[in-house]
């Protein structure tokens, strides 16, 4: 299934478009998505350790603007936002 990952903060370095499209297995969870992003970093950014650290410290937000846990089951074509470590103010 396809998902659109919306990028924020340091993850915007992944694409100039503000999102990346990823293909996951049916009934994938946020945990699977995290693995897929790490694979994307291996392929497109030579396994950049700083990016992986950021992804592994990130939380995720569903299309309904709710923070979701690693067990959350992603829907086909769902738009998920990555929430890297924050620092506003």
């Amino acid at each position, binding site marked *: 299934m396809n998902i659109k990952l919306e990028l*924020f*903060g*340091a993850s*915007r*370095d992944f694409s100039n478009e503000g999102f990346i499209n990823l293909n996951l297995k049916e009934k994938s969870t946020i945990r699977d998505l995290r693995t897929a992003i790490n694979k994307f970093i291996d392929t497109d950014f030579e396994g950049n350790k700083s990016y992986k650290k950021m992804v592994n*410290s*990130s*939380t995720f*937000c569903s299309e309904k*603007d709710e*923070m979701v846990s690693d067990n959350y089951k992603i829907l086909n074509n769902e738009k998920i*936002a990555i*929430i*890297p*470590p*924050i*620092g*506003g*103010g």
Partner: protein
Amino acid sequence: MLHARVVDIAKEQIELIKAEKFIASSKCGASIYFVGTVRDLNNDKKVIGMTYDSHDALVIKSFEEIYQSSIKKFNFDNSVVFIEHIKGQIKLGEISILIGVACKHRNQAYELSRFFIEEIKKKTPIWKKEHYEDGDSEWLEGNPIQKD
């Protein structure tokens, strides 16, 4: 009463006068304004500006949740809070965040203002990218978002 907004610098600026108008109340005897601005030096690097990125819907939700938890925590009568945070690129000295608070008494206003900025730092999805004098720029590392 709460006013919460993300202000896109491409369209407008954060203005103190809007906060003054919103929090003005004859029921309150104390007002505090916390103004965050971009400073010129960080980790020995000369900073010339900052880009703020924001998940707007979650930011507003976070401001509302912080306001609700402040009511539970302090239970101050008639308190009024105005919060605006910038998004986009701003220069040195420009305002990134404005928190205006009005309460019946000064100790309440100081406490509430401090509570808001500390909670925002921990719970509100906003990110900073520093721009340096040498043309380089860098996203600041930040801390994992805290949930209640």
